[in-house]
């Protein structure tokens, strides 16, 4: 075991894959010698050469189009989009191409070896265009897997699983935690399962669900609630698509109360999809309405970021409201 921050864990996973698979290729804007603007690909070009880790021109649709072709050819492309806010020029390549490649060809061709890494999320004074959490757009697209880790251990295990999974994966990295989140990470190879949520804290009164950087916020709210004698069960969804209905439904069936929290705006966010499904699965067990604690329905602000975000106090309030409903 070693102490790693989330970036080091990502870098370690990429190193692991590039060492074992000589057809694994990392590329994106500034990914080469510089190692990416966040340094996630640091040292990889020196180690594996310019043909396997390189800068691309500044064209996101080109990056993902190129990656789709490489994956269809049988290579293992790991493409970086510098910020999730800038993934939209590549939206067509992801939604109409990556996601549908296998289905539309009747499995004659696929891009299962494709992984797209991209930093997402707020809390870094990044304003509109360095803070967004666009996971719901991709969750609406059958054929993609969407994965979000919450800490360095999860990041390495989930990224290795994503790269080796035989489906295209969009891997959202919580950039606020890149250096802030430090933990024990095994040096050796390991994988964590996709499509499986994780119960990170057992509890009996209420279920709290989140993913990525929002997990930390939810845990903080649960501590406040614990001081009031409320026992929270906390779940990390980990994979947004396809999501683990069973683990969440089992927990809510047990607790009877449910708060789901996301960084992204409220309307049509993935929390809404979860709320609808859990309402159907657990209707007779619910003691209170399902609460969604989310960003507001505005573009991501700058000066008023603190007010905008779904912070621990808003979640704490939602927990208390649910308990006293």
């Amino acid at each position, binding site marked *: 075991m070693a102490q790693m921050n989330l970036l080091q864990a990502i870098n370690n996973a990429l190193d692991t894959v590039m060492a074992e698979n000589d*057809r694994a*290729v990392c590329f994106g804007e500034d990914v080469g010698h510089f190692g990416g603007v966040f340094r996630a690909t640091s040292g990889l070009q020196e180690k594996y050469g310019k*043909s396997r880790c*390189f800068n*691309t*021109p500044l*064209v996101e*649709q*080109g*990056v*993902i*189009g*190129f*990656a*789709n*072709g*490489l*994956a*269809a*050819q*049988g*290579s293992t*492309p790991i493409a970086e989009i510098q910020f999730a806010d800038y993934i939209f*020029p590549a939206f*067509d*390549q992801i939604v*109409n*191409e990556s996601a*549908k490649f*296998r*289905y*539309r*060809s*009747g*499995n*004659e*061709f*696929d891009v*299962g070896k494709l992984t797209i890494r991209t930093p997402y999320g707020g809390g870094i004074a990044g304003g509109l265009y360095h803070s967004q959490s666009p996971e719901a757009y991709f969750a609406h697209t*059958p*054929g993609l*897997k969407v994965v979000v880790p919450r800490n360095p251990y999860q990041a390495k295990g989930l990224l290795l699983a994503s790269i080796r999974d*035989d*489906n295209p994966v969009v891997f959202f990295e919580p950039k606020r935690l890149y250096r802030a989140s430090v933990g024990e990470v095994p040096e050796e190879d390991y994988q964590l399962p996709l*499509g499986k949520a994780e119960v990170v804290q057992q509890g009996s009164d209420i279920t709290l669900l989140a993913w990525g950087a929002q997990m930390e916020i939810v845990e903080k709210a649960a501590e406040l609630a614990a001081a009031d004698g409320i026992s929270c069960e906390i779940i990390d969804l980990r994979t947004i698509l*396809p*999501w683990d*209905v*069973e683990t969440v439904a089992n927990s809510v069936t047990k607790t009877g109360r449910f708060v789901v929290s996301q960084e992204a705006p409220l309307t049509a966010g993935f929390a809404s999809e979860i709320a609808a499904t859990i309402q159907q699965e657990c209707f007779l067990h619910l003691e209170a309405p399902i609460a969604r604690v989310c960003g507001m329905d505005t573009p991501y602000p700058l000066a008023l970021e603190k007010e905008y975000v779904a912070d621990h106090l808003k979640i704490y309030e939602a927990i208390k409201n649910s308990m006293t409903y």
Partner: protein
Amino acid sequence: MNTDIYNESPVVHQPAFIDGHSVEIPILKILKQDGSIYENAIMPEIDRELATKTYKTLAFHRVLDERMVAAQRQGRISFYMAALGEEAASVGGAAGLKDQDMIMAQYREQGALMFRGFSLENFMNQMFSNEQDLGKGRQMPIHYGSNELNYMTISSPLGTQIPQAAGYAYGQKMQGLDAVTICYFGEGAASEGDFHAGLNMAAVHQSPVIFFCRNNGYAISTPSDEQYVGNGIASRGVGYGMKTLRIDGNDILAVIAAVQLAREYAVKEGKPVLIEAMSYRLGAHSTSDDPSGYRTREEEAKWQEHDPILRMKNWMLAQGWWDEVQETALFEKLRDEVLAAVKVSEKIDKPPVEDLITDVYDQAPPLLQGQLEQLKVHIKKYPDAYPFTAGRIK
């Protein structure tokens, strides 16, 4: 950082534009319409066997297109796209390649797939979306694909195959294969962002791709002079620092020569090439289109005189490699075969309901399996409303 442009450009001291049309681009012509060869023309590598195969493929293409447009008019299939008048671009492209080369087409290049040997049954089963379609009945007619024949399944969104070809070819080169990727698109699709992304990616990363633009004058109803004002699409290859060639797209020998040259260069140098083939879409964009609304009969008649298949036939006759008896027999046989194949394929069952959820992922996730089970229960409840599948649900 490379400072060549700053340090080595010729210097002027009065502001002056260079003209947007200052790059002169010649057009390669080898074969005249009467079947004779231009003086000093350099012939492609083509023997009697390759020529005969190429000509028979062109004939098959023409017959299949005629018959399937008719089948659409009769309501037997929903949609069709003919390549009337520009068959040489796709057939000649495949004839200039090797079988291991990947073909990433736009949608009007069925000729390349015919050349590779995709069977008449395979074409039919795709168009009738039946359970023997390789694509499992998921895409509209003409969206063919075959892993075995290195022909990437067609995708309707325009231009998406262009950056993909850059990536595909990069992978071929990384593996050290004797293989390239040819990427077809029209002059209309060359306005898409993916065109510019793809050409630049291929040029910068040195992918062995042959970008093959079929400039057929129209994007549905929009004429090419409303699509761009530069010197065609070829001038853009120059802009991306790429070897570029413009050819007569109705001249099968020019197509084969250009693709052979491009292939040799792409493999040897590991770099991309752009070919712009000038042609004309004699038919409608698709069976849903009517060109009489946007162009004249006179214009079409002028291009009838450049028929690429007749041009090749004239050459074959002049070579003594073909005669009118063979011609009549071939077309009769092809028409009979196509008609017979229609009658077989249209009777084959639609795909089973289970195919709704396969291939979305490598394995259907639980949520999707649940949706299929719910659907089956529903179909059993209202079998008359779902006649293709109701009787086959276990």
